[in-house]
């Protein structure tokens, strides 16, 4: 934070000097306000564009394995994935008839029910 403030102060000083050199008749107070405005605008722009989306969560060779594992389903989390689903009606009916079991059928309106929900 100290470094950020020091950088900002330096930038503001430089901004005042630039504004005064570009606009010779401007009063120092006005120059300070103009430079501060430029600095704020510049800082806002940097805040948005400099968001290093990838730096917030360090992804490298060391963290790769743990992160890969954390993304995957955890034990007991999505037990419906543990079921050996069939996806072919005819094969399922044949199996049900052969094993003397009913079908447990799950459908989604606009997708196969075990894919993306």
């Amino acid at each position, binding site marked *: 934070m100290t470094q950020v403030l020091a950088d900002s102060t330096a930038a503001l000083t430089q901004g005042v000097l630039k504004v005064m050199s570009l606009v010779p008749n401007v009063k120092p107070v006005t120059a300070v306000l103009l430079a501060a405005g430029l600095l704020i605008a510049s800082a806002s722009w940097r805040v948005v564009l400099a*968001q290093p989306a990838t730096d*917030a*969560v360090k992804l490298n060779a060391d963290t790769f394995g743990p992160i890969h594992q954390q993304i995957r389903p955890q034990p007991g*989390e999505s037990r419906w994935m543990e079921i050996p689903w069939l996806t072919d009606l005819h094969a399922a*009916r044949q199996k049900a008839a052969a094993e003397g079991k*009913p079908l447990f059928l*799950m*459908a989604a309106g606009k997708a196969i029910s075990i894919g993306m929900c």
Partner: protein
Amino acid sequence: MGRAPAYWSEENVKLIIDNFVPLSVHGADQRRQDAVGQFYRDAGLNLDKFEAVQCCVTAGGKVLEATYLGIDLQNTLEKWQALPESERALGAVKIANPGGVNIQPTESTPPAGGLILKVYTRAFMRDDAGQLCYVTGKNLWLDEAGNRTLESDYHNERTAAHQAQPDHMWLTEAEWKSLIPANPRKDDQFPMPTSITDRILRWHLNPLRFYGRYGPDALDRHTVRAGELTLTVEAVAPHAVRLRLDGFARLGQVPPAAVVERKIASLDQWGYEPRVLGFLEYEPQQQVFIRFDIVAMGEHFGRLGNGSAAPSRLGLQPLGMSFELVKGDQPADRILPGRAANAQSYFDVSN
């Protein structure tokens, strides 16, 4: 009911595995003009009328139970036991070959000689120490200020936004072969082929596809602000060529200041900026990939999904995707990626 953990208890899953033949289908099968659609219509089912529906049906087509809520399995098994032997005994029902099935296997199954990658997507939060932690209902906001969360919403039981979401990526034989340099040397670098890069960036890293409400499978090209994927040869040995995949994507909008400052959960804009890292291993003698692990991880803002019911998280939060090889010997691993109507429409995205 869908994927609410409350229904998918250890007990219920065991009951299903032990006593039923589990079948997962597309609701649109109801409208198929062939033996498959006819079976559902004859049974009096309405698979396409609900977001998710469960049914218990005999092999012969008698419906024991059908509900968009969770089926009472014990009760349904009692109904099954009450059926006459002619409808439930081993081998009592003969299933004739279906005539006139419309969909040819090549239209909905992975390409011959191709690769199947299992993909999972998961939304994370950061704990106070900045470490990844899993999302709970209270992190999933239904308004910008968090006055309504999924923890308190009655739809909570129907959401899966706190679970890893499954999907698949397919590569044709020609595509995966194009990843192997003819004479690989350590530190060689080359860009991922354009069509594969395009499909990864626009389809597989598309955060609108996940967590329901039917977002588009592929982003428009203009939605990809930037992105690239590069392969580097890390090691060459007689039994393995190891490649590293590096890249990034900048998708959707630049985050607004209120999101960056963690003042709101964005509901009307979205953006995702993942870094991509992967480790691929090719076995030259067998001519097969034996490892194809990829992670995409980065900041996301906006709804987890593409509809007005999809929740959002405060500020910028991590969204991760993992990719890994699967053999494809399980039916569940061979379903079409995303909501593609057929294999052609999936591969056409990158053409």
